[in-house]
């Protein structure tokens, strides 16, 4: 799970619960997302990489170096 890249579908930022679509198990699932670095923001459509995964559906993401 960690290391996978995903697309932001809900704005990620401090005080917000963002959403990331991540391909997994042959499909694509939505995960609740938070920034791994505090005060970092990701707008919708940004590509992020999963840094931490907290089951069942929470990930911490960082900006992907595309």
């Amino acid at each position: 799970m960690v290391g996978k890249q995903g697309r932001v579908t809900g704005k990620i930022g401090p005080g917000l619960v963002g959403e990331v679509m991540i391909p997994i198990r042959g499909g694509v699932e939505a995960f609740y997302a938070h920034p791994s670095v505090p005060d970092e923001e990701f707008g919708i459509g940004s590509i992020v990489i999963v840094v931490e995964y907290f089951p069942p559906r929470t990930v911490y993401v960082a900006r992907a170096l595309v």
Partner: protein
Amino acid sequence: MSPELYIAAAGVILAAVVIILLFKAVWRVAEPNEALIISGLGARRRGEGGVDSLGFKIVTGKGTAVLPGFQAARRLRLDTRAANLQVSCVTQQGIPVHIRGVVIYKVGDDLSSIANAARRFLDQQDFMTSAIHELFTGHLRSIIGNLTIEDLILNRERLTSETRASAADEMSKLGLIVDSLQIQEIDDETGYIVNLGKPHAAKVAATARIAQAQRDQEATEAEQVAVANMAAARRDARIKEAAYQAEIDQAQATSRQAGPLSEATARQEVVVQETKAAELEAKLAEQRLQSQVRKPADAKAYETVTLSQAERDARIAQAEAEAKETELRAAAQASQIKLAAAAEAESVRLRGEAAGAATKIAGEAESEATRLRGMAEADAARAKGLAQAEAIKARAEALASNQEAVVAQQLAERWPEIVEAGAKAFGNVDHMVVLNGAQGVEEMLAKALTLGGAGLGLARALLNGGSPNGAEPEIIHKTTESRE
């Protein structure tokens, strides 16, 4: 075929059927939309953490053998589920609204979610919807309370974000994930939403009306222009038509008049020729007159003029000669008369003187004679008057003595006048027819005279009766008059 073979074949088939049935009783397959939760013998498996384990086995997407009696296999459906929500709440602005929505959720696909959900809902999967309904009713109320109606309507991002922020943790606890939250209907008792749209609607309506009016105006203008153009075209067409019609009429009239015109032209030619002929005849007649009448007349006139001029000249010359002669003669006579007159004047003077002397002597003699004659006549007249007076005196005496005789004498003196008066009776008769000839005339005259005689008698009676003495002065008067 031996009976043993049949038995063996039947035994094989039976064995196969038994095996299939046995396998079917043991082997369970998890379909894609479900998870097999297997608990019992051998299901307790060491988890990743080592110490704590799941306590049951979760199988998804594959088959597994379940030992009847030793293991229990239950299916947890992973399908999408929907829960209808109805919430009465207030928005961030305090506007009361009645929200009707739907939340679409499912059991998460990862093992943790399946485990959480299995622990909670495995035996009461139908209860899941009511639980979610209760859960989301509260969440929706808080979500709506954080939003304005404009956000609710327009800002889906905000809505989903609030939904996640509000419900994420609790849903994770239940092993569920929210696929979607939809607001189906917002009942707005205060009319906020309706009023929200009104300015724009009015603006749009105004724009629409303006546009419509402008288009209408343009259309009307275009129509009027078109109508005007049509009228102009119609007018032009009619003008051209009239012009062509006029040409047609003219041509028709011309063609119609062509016959009479040519006839008239021909007749005109004839008349011209006739006129020329008449003129020629007139000229001929004139020439004839000239030659037959005028020339002789001119010649005669000329002759007469010439003759009269010659005669006049001759007379003038004669007159002049006579005048000269007369003049000379008059002069001679004048001198002659002058001499004669002088001589006569002298003789007259002498004769006058002689006559004067003679007349003077004669006058004296005659006056003497006249004087003497007058004296003689006067004497004679005096004597005659005396004699008449004597006679009248005597007649008066006689009248006084015998009046009848006097009257008869007077009547006898007046007899012709009486007869004339009797004849006057017949003077007024225009036509007198006498039937018995000359004898009748005599009788008639005799009667008239008899009447006159009767009148005479009457007159005499009047003289006698009316004024017997009146006759005398009249007669005397008459006598005096006659004497004078």
